[in-house]
């Protein structure tokens, strides 16, 4: 009996080097995203974009790491954009599935929860659409994010509004969502630095859909223009009510909703001419050929047009590929982190990243993309021009904040 066991053990040892020296290996990455519930409008497209990128990379021969070639595979879980759920998913992926690379992450609350514990874990986290500044500002060495924080765009937006000849600006924005308040504060600072005057800062809460009181008040102060920001479900009401109140001054904003989402609430006349000032997420008009190819491939695979945020997740996969190839290892996470920190903007990514010191990620693992001004014309968001963005200056400031 004992001899039999020894024999089996010897057999196992004899077998294992054979599998390890096989030409082709599989690297399994974990995907945590909102696949159901309210966040699914961001999470599902991210998951699909990741699947698409992996399919393309595998079809193109996989990832060459040292002498080995790796094909990618995923384990995907639904975190429902919920902090508790997302933390459980991260635990499951790291402890049970033994995954070392986590990606996806569409939503700020769930991602923030995972980011707050990931610093102590032996894993690398690639964040997509989640916009809260603290996710990377906290400075964990193993967190990297493709989407810039909200206030980075806010500063560019403030300079842009001033450049449009606006001297007095009235602001109405979401009261208690960090993404919007940070953007707004950065906008105010940049706008005032350009010599502009803020006549009022009014706010609305999470379920408010009646902004007539705020709009009437700001209207009485006679600003040259309005700035309205928050989630599209609420901001659309503000535009409808502004139109009803006969407000003719230009309305700038930040919310990133699709034309359909706005038009469900506000009429075409109410929306015509409204500006949305945001980071240029995926947009085939504003970006180049890679973006068009991405849109075609996505549509072919999933039979729908990619959402603007999906490219943040698509690019995660190509970033990981480049970093693994540069590091020459998949197991030495410190080497991979070092490689991520030093890579240039890799080939294959869709978005227009603005490198800081020639590198894709700044010292806190944050990437920056260009910002753009979009205007609502004939029931569509038309790309008008790039905003004056300064990634290096923002990054220098970003290194000094922690939340």
């Amino acid at each position: 009996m004992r001899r039999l066991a020894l024999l089996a053990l010897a057999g196992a040892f004899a077998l294992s080097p054979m599998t390890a020296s096989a030409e082709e290996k599989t690297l399994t990455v974990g995907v945590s995203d909102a696949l159901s519930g309210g966040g699914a409008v961001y999470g599902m497209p991210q998951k699909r974009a990741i699947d698409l990128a992996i399919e393309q990379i595998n079809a193109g021969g996989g990832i060459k790491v040292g002498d080995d070639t790796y094909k990618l595979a995923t384990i995907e879980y639904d975190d429902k954009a919920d902090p508790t759920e997302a933390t459980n998913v991260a635990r499951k992926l790291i402890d049970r599935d033994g995954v070392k690379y986590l990606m996806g992450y569409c939503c700020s609350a769930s991602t923030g929860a995972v980011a707050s514990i990931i610093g102590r874990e032996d894993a690398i986290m690639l964040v997509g659409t989640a916009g809260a500044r603290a996710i990377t500002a906290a400075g964990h060495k193993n967190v990297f994010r493709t989407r810039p924080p909200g206030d980075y765009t806010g500063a560019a937006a403030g300079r842009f509004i001033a450049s449009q000849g606006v001297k007095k600006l009235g602001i109405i924005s979401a009261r208690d969502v960090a993404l919007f308040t940070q953007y707004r504060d950065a906008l105010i600072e940049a706008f005032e630095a350009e010599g502009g005057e803020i006549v009022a800062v009014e706010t609305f809460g999470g379920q408010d859909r009646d902004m007539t009181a705020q709009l009437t008040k700001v209207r009485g102060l006679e600003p040259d223009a309005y700035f309205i920001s928050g989630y599209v479900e609420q901001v659309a009401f503000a535009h409808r009510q502004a139109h009803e109140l006969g407000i003719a001054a230009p309305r700038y904003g930040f919310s990133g909703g699709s034309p359909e989402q706005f038009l469900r609430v506000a009429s075409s006349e109410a929306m015509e001419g409204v500006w949305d000032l945001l980071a240029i997420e995926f947009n085939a008009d504003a970006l180049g050929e890679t973006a068009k190819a991405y849109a075609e491939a996505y549509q072919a695979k999933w039979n729908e047009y990619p959402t603007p945020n999906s490219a943040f997740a698509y690019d995660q996969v190509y970033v990981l590929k480049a970093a693994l190839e540069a590091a020459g290892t998949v197991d030495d996470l410190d080497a991979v982190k070092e490689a991520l920190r030093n890579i240039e903007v890799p080939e294959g990514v869709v978005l227009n990243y603005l490198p800081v010191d020639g590198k894709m990620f700044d010292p806190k693992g944050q990437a920056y993309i260009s910002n753009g001004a979009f205007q609502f014309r004939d029931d569509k968001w038309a790309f008008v021009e790039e905003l004056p963005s300064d990634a290096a200056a923002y990054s220098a400031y970003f290194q000094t904040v922690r939340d």
Partner: protein
Amino acid sequence: MLVDLIQQLFNGLVIGSIYTLVALGLTIIFGILGIAHFAHGSVAMFGGYITYFFIASLGFGLFPSMAAAMAVGALLGVGLERIAYYPVRNAPPINAFIIALGLTLIIEKSNLILFGVDQIIIPTGFTRVFNVGGVTLPELRVYILAIAAVLVIGLTILIQRTWMGMAVRAVAQNRPAAVLMGINVNAVSMFVFALSSALGVAAGVLVGALFAIAPGVSGGLVVKGFAVLILGGLGSIPGAIVGGLVLGVSETFASAFISSAYKDVIAFLLMIGVLLVKPEGLMRRSAAR
């Protein structure tokens, strides 16, 4: 400045009229049965969803859909009373309280399962905007004020002028005496729930037409409804009317003259103030009990 003041008054009255409709439903149930019916907001949202379903899927007009939804709401109200509250009518009040909380969850989640998470806006086609001396009056908001006024007047006539209304008032004033006079208290409670739920549905439809029906909206509506109840006096119908309008206007004026950041705070400060100075509520005589 005067134009803005009138504009804000109008804005506040429209919101206040919706608060009034919500509070009326809550107040008649509280006045007669002593139940804090937290599920009222979810019933209102359910009514909004049903109305949208009638319009979008069955092609009914707005007003027939609203009437049909109010009828469905009335039936739902009777069902709630029979199934949930009737069995605990003689139990300690805490039982009805727990049941009210349970019902809120059940109806809220049923709405979620049946109608999804996206916000729904009831299409009305009322998009014109009237302009009277610089004050803008969107057509839809004017109609909402009018519909609320018609419903309030209708309710007042029903309570003051009909036999059933008299029975309702009798039970509210003195339940044992009403029973001794031969009033069927069971029928009265069913009637009250039907009436209250129909009013709630009407409020839900107005919210859905002017703003949107979505998960999470009902909670805010009920909180405001109870604030109005305390402001106006628990169980008082005139109190609900005046309280709703006062709350709506004071919220709007708070936004206009102080800051929108403190809108909800000011509404509740007002409520605490009333409780301190006139604890029985604005419209209730202190000798009423």
